[in-house]
């Protein structure tokens, strides 16, 4: 049985950055990195953007060139999923029956695209956007596709809709809530993106619940809504979030539920096991002390840095302000902070100018900003979020006054 000082499970941003940082910090032990996908570490965000559009091939979204990992003595083994973790023996087992022993385990396994469960969910022509393989399958079917139904009006669904409508497809977006981005943004932002998508020709159905996928000869032909309406579709794209990959750790006795609970140093309740990235649930000072999973590149990099530093002797955990981004059409959304739990929104600038920000407050403190084509607000708003600034709403809404002058 192979023994490694550190085993990293997962090859996304979190896992790859952990390995990279350990070597950067002159960690001399053995590192084994296991990936479920067959591809070496690559960036996931372009899958619903440039990669989906065919503007960037795989080699341009690799996190590092393939040879990099061997050069840094990271033993990269792909195409196997860890199914069992034994925290007593400190061993893991993969789905192809391999057993590996570890001293320290870094669980950065991310999650899988949440599948549909309604009747017809297994028909051909239904696609997810989580892996490179998913998107290649989707793209291979695009030439024969005229009508696409996107289920889910979150970031992935909307980004995909923007690319597909630009590619000349007739796109319908089906969202169960009464507005898009309902889980991640305030109403002013939702309404803005709804107008944008509609003006680009997207047929947006809000408050629409899917009751099933209709098919013919094993292939999806329409999405059936609970009010009986059928949305004809040659292709169905499902963007309804992820299911975090936590089962093996929960089965091993780790505390958690929707994510694996970790402390400030990303340690799980099991000795020698850390969890980071999309699947880790950590108490966030930016969410009023709520424990939550954050699905973002910035969070993955941040938690990788915490673990990488911790495993090489640094005790302090530096926590940066959460950031996100989303590109749709010619709109660049940049988010700083977590709007979760806001009790007030202030619009700064005019959405009709297609350059504005939504400022989120909780108990009078600035907790987040969604900035659309407003990079300056994103950069300057970061300090307001970091300090939990209290600023009068009429000042925040006045786009002629730079935010940095308010924080001074």
């Amino acid at each position: 049985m192979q023994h490694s000082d550190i085993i990293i499970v997962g090859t996304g941003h979190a896992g790859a950055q952990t390995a990279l940082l350990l070597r950067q910090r002159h960690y001399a032990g053995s590192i084994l990195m296991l990936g479920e996908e067959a591809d070496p570490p690559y960036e996931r965000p372009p899958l619903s953007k440039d990669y989906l559009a065919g503007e960037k091939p795989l080699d341009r979204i690799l996190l590092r060139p393939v040879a990099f990992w061997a050069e840094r003595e990271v033993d990269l083994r792909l195409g196997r999923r860890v199914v069992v973790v034994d925290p007593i023996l400190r061993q893991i087992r993969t789905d192809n029956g391999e057993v590996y022993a570890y001293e320290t385990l870094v669980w950065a396994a991310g999650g899988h695209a949440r599948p549909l469960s309604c009747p017809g969910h297994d028909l051909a022509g239904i696609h997810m956007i989580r892996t490179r393989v998913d998107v290649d399958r989707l793209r291979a079917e695009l030439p024969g596709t005229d009508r696409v139904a996107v289920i889910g009006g979150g970031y992935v669904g909307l980004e995909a809709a923007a690319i597909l409508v630009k590619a000349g497809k007739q796109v319908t977006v089906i969202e169960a809530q009464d507005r898009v981005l309902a889980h991640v943004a305030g109403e002013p932002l939702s309404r803005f993106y709804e107008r944008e998508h509609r003006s680009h020709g997207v047929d947006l159905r809000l408050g629409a619940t899917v009751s099933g996928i209709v098919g013919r000869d094993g292939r999806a032909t329409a999405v059936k809504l609970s009010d009986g309406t059928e949305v004809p579709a040659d292709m169905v794209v499902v963007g309804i979030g992820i299911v975090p990959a936590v089962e093996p750790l929960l089965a091993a006795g780790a505390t958690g539920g929707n994510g694996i609970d970790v402390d400030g140093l990303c340690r799980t309740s099991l000795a020698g096991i850390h969890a980071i990235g999309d699947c880790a649930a950590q108490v966030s000072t930016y969410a009023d002390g709520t424990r939550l999973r954050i699905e973002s590149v910035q969070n993955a990099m941040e938690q990788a840095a915490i673990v990488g530093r911790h495993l090489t002797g640094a005790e302090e955990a530096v926590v940066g302000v959460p950031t996100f981004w989303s590109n749709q059409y010619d709109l660049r959304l940049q988010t700083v902070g977590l709007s979760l739990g806001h009790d007030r929104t202030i619009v700064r600038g005019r959405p009709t100018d297609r350059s504005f920000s939504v400022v989120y407050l909780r108990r009078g403190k600035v907790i987040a900003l969604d900035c659309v084509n407003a990079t300056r607000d994103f950069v300057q708003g970061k300090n307001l979020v970091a300090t939990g600034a209290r600023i009068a709403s009429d000042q925040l809404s006045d786009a002629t006054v730079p935010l940095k002058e308010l924080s001074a």
Partner: protein
Amino acid sequence: MPILIVVTRDGAEREIEGRVGLSVMENIRDQGFDELQALCGGSCSCATCHVYVDPASAGSVPPTSEDENDLLCGSDARNETSRLSCQIRFSTAMDGLRVTIAPED
């Protein structure tokens, strides 16, 4: 192939053959330098691919856009030669371009 000169944070200098059409960030990343985070992958949404462009070699580098400038303003390490390397598409005219990876914020 045109040459790109990369200076890392410890002052080490290395010449690499630049791939034309890719950004300077991609060129640096693809040559195995590990210091550039390039968190957003080159979509001008963060400032983690910050470099200093040697003014003597900067002649053929296009000017900074407003968005790029705004992002750079958020960096404590910014100076007058600062650029986001994802926003410079490497070309043959840039042969000999010398960039230094800026400190992490």
